[in-house]
């Protein structure tokens, strides 16, 4: 048995048109039908169509969006260019490589892991069934090796295939029969049944935005945010909202500012290159106090970087990219399902504080699909404070909270001009030092008085002062960190997890409390320069000894890396 930690991980690879994503999705669905949690991440080559791709599926008895350390099985429809995924699909001597001998031997990069090679004539097997395809045979083989119930697999195939359903089911059965005679990689028993969702991070963010009240979206297509927009376009239409495909990201951000000025909660989604273009107008949102939400589905940068792969390297630009002193909100979901809650919360924060909010999702969350527990919704979405009437209206009145009632166009007697120029309380442009200071104080006050409650971070462990190690992280590193901590605890090293969800405004008092009694801190992030570590150093007092575990994308952290690091720290 493979040391799968309550799960089994398999990968299916092949060149374009081989249907690996289709089969991967069916495997995910089959696992769900059998009562398991599961996660499918994907990787692909640079080609638009016809390029190699791999679906990586982890079937588990517990919810997670972390990949495991090793894959139990890698099956390939063909080996063309699949070698370039070797670092993303780690194998070891207990792994199994399955390939069609007619497609040649597996690449040396995989063989040198010590994995055993099992030749299986996938294409010839598929030919035995009229209308059968090798990817469906491979699906059956993988499901069979995990000993997923045949009924779950058949149901998954039937649900996904409108055409050729019978052939699909038969091909999958044939694959399962091939696996039956082999050693197996059995799953632990499934967890008790609960209500679950099957969703991608991008869909979750889109639904979160809709739940938050977003009814206007303007955006420019960009990998890996496009699916978020493609989810929202028809969904918005069903809710009486609109999505405008803009000519560029400069237009996107200004369109949503215009729509929000008109009273419509508004959002755009993009990735690093697009966020770079939006920065100037985000400053307008800060100064003119117009709420907008920007979801940045981060990819590898700088510049075009690796468009299809994940990295947490837009933290600096999200926090510090704006010119001038420009207080705004930055939120990061810390699980795939939390893409929903965090985005919904971001809408709430933007609307209630009349400020731009950036949501830092990433390609890993955005394009992964998973069986998750029903996402946690934001229990309270506060509508924008609007002005209804009154004499001598002051749009930027210096209120105690810093938030001042916003008049929406159409309201008689309250017309004002929203302006990027510094202004006085009435909104009239002013170059006076006193107005600048008063308005800067007001805009800073809005964020300073924010009480995020428990939403500011996920805190786990550390009850009763347990352990003196804390791991600080954010975003998609949270899953592997959580699992690494669990494994270390099983080996007697206790550590607490603090995964920050509210990155700006910083919450130094809350973190201080969360780290009470901590003597060693491990900061985990997926970028090269340690942006999160520098941010923590700048905004917080970190106790004791601080270590950094970081690397650039696209390789995700694996639980074992965290576990080993924690054991090292624990031995000190």
């Amino acid at each position, binding site marked *: 048995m493979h040391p799968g930690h309550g799960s089994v991980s398999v990968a299916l690879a092949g060149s374009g048109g081989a249907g690996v994503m289709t089969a991967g999705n069916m495997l995910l669905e089959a696992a*769900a*039908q059998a*009562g398991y949690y599961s996660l499918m991440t994907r990787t692909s080559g640079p080609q638009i169509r016809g390029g190699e791709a791999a679906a990586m599926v982890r079937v588990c008895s517990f919810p997670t969006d972390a990949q495991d350390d090793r894959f139990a099985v890698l099956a390939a429809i063909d080996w063309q260019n699949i070698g370039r995924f070797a670092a993303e699909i780690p194998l070891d001597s207990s792994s199994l490589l399955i390939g069609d001998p007619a497609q040649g031997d597996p690449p040396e990069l995989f063989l040198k892991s010590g994995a055993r090679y099992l030749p299986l004539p996938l294409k010839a097997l598929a030919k035995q069934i009229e209308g059968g395809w090798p990817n469906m045979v491979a699906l059956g083989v993988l499901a069979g090796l995990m000993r997923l119930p045949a009924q779950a697999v058949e*149901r998954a195939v039937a649900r996904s295939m409108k055409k050729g359903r019978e052939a699909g089911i038969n091909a999958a059965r044939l694959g399962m029969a091939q696996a039956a005679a082999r050693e197996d990689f059995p799953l632990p028993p499934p967890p008790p*049944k609960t*209500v*679950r*969702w*099957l*969703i991608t991070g991008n*869909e979750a963010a889109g*639904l979160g935005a*809709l*739940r938050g009240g977003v*009814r*206007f979206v*303007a955006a420019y297509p960009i990998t890996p945010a496009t699916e978020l927009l493609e989810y929202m376009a028809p*969904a918005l*239409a*069903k*809710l009486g*909202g*609109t999505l*405008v495909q*803009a*000519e560029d990201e*400069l*237009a*996107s*951000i*200004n*369109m*949503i*500012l*215009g*729509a*929000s*000025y*008109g*009273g419509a909660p*508004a959002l755009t989604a993009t990735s690093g290159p697009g966020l770079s273009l939006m920065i*100037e*107008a985000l400053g*307008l949102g800060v100064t*003119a106090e117009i709420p907008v939400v920007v979801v940045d589905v981060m990819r590898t940068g700088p510049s075009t970087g690796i468009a299809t792969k994940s990295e947490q390297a837009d933290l600096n630009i999200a926090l510090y990219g704006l010119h001038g002193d420009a207080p705004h909100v930055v939120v990061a979901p810390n699980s795939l399902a939390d893409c929903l809650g965090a985005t919904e919360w971001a809408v709430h924060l933007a609307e209630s504080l009349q400020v731009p909010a950036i949501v830092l999702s990433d390609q890993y969350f955005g394009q992964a699909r998973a*069986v998750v527990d029903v996402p946690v919704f934001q229990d309270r979405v506060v509508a924008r404070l609007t002005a209804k009437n009154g004499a001598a209206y002051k749009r930027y009145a210096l209120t105690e909270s810093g938030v001042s009632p916003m*008049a929406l*166009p*159409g309201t*008689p*007697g*309250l*017309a004002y*001009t*929203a*302006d*990027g*120029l510094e202004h006085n309380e009435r*909104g009239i*442009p002013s170059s006076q030092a006193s107005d600048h200071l008063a308005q800067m104080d007001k805009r800073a006050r809005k964020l300073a008085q924010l009480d995020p409650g428990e939403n500011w971070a996920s805190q786990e462990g550390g009850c009763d002062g347990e352990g003196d190690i804390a791991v600080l992280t954010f975003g998609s590193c949270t899953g592997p960190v959580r699992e690494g901590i669990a494994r270390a605890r099983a080996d007697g090293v206790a550590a607490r997890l603090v995964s920050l969800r509210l990155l700006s405004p910083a919450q130094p008092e809350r973190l201080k409390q969360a780290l009470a009694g901590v003597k060693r801190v491990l900061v985990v992030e997926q970028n090269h320069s340690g942006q999160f570590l520098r941010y923590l150093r700048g905004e917080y007092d970190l106790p004791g000894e601080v270590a950094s575990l970081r690397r650039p994308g696209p390789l995700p952290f694996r639980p074992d890396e965290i576990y080993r690091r924690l054991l090292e720290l624990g031995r000190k």
Partner: protein
Amino acid sequence: MNPPASAALAAKDFKSDYKPIWCPGCGDYSVLSSVTKALAALGLRPENVAVVSGIGCSSRIPAYTTCYGFHGVHGRSLAAATGLKVARPDLTVLVASGDGDGYSIGGNHFLHACRRNVDLTYIVMDNHVYGMTKGQASPTTEPDWDSKLSPGGSGVREFHPLVIALASGANFVARAFSGDPNGTAAILAEAVRHPGFSFVEVLSPCVTFRPDQRAWKERAHPAPVAPTDDPARAARRIMTDDGFNIGVLYKGNRKPYRGAVPATSTVAELGRRFELQGG
């Protein structure tokens, strides 16, 4: 400050008490007058009108009106106005810009706003110069116009906004002259009434950096022909005229941008789509 809802409004009711920063003699004063006259003539109320602009002398206009204003970043007025109008189709949205803001930094948005044909009225006050930054060549500046930033002239040919607008799909194209505020007001009112994207290029002299433009008063003249709905014919006229034909030059029949439709579902229902069935 706004008069009671029942009263008929005059142009002055659309003018704020905020003193413009423009130089004495600037053509934009007249454009402001024309805008307020047109809004009064249209029988609109200031709270139902939004004036959106970017950066530059002409873009200061929103705050000089009693309408809702949006004075955004440089070059993006059309984008902001598009978002506003799509989200709030009940509002009358005017967009104010200049030759630098609209044709240079905002040039791309100009093309796509024409294509998209959202029901906006785009007023570009063209004085062939960057005034706010004190006298640099703009896209409509003559190639031999000498300036500190382009000594001896830019050597670059002028941009032809009316032809670009036509080619890109603007539904209404007109040229106005700030020296004729009543004529400009009439053109603006017609532009607002016309559905879809209406483009009004207003020749508005900069007496500070282009004193030579005082001569425009002699050069401007009414267009000798009635507007056409044939873009090819309009393009030919515009490309061959002397640049001072004043009036509505093209009125098209394209359908305006399709906005939101009534809701047919709820967020809860959309969420249920992700709930796993069976298993």
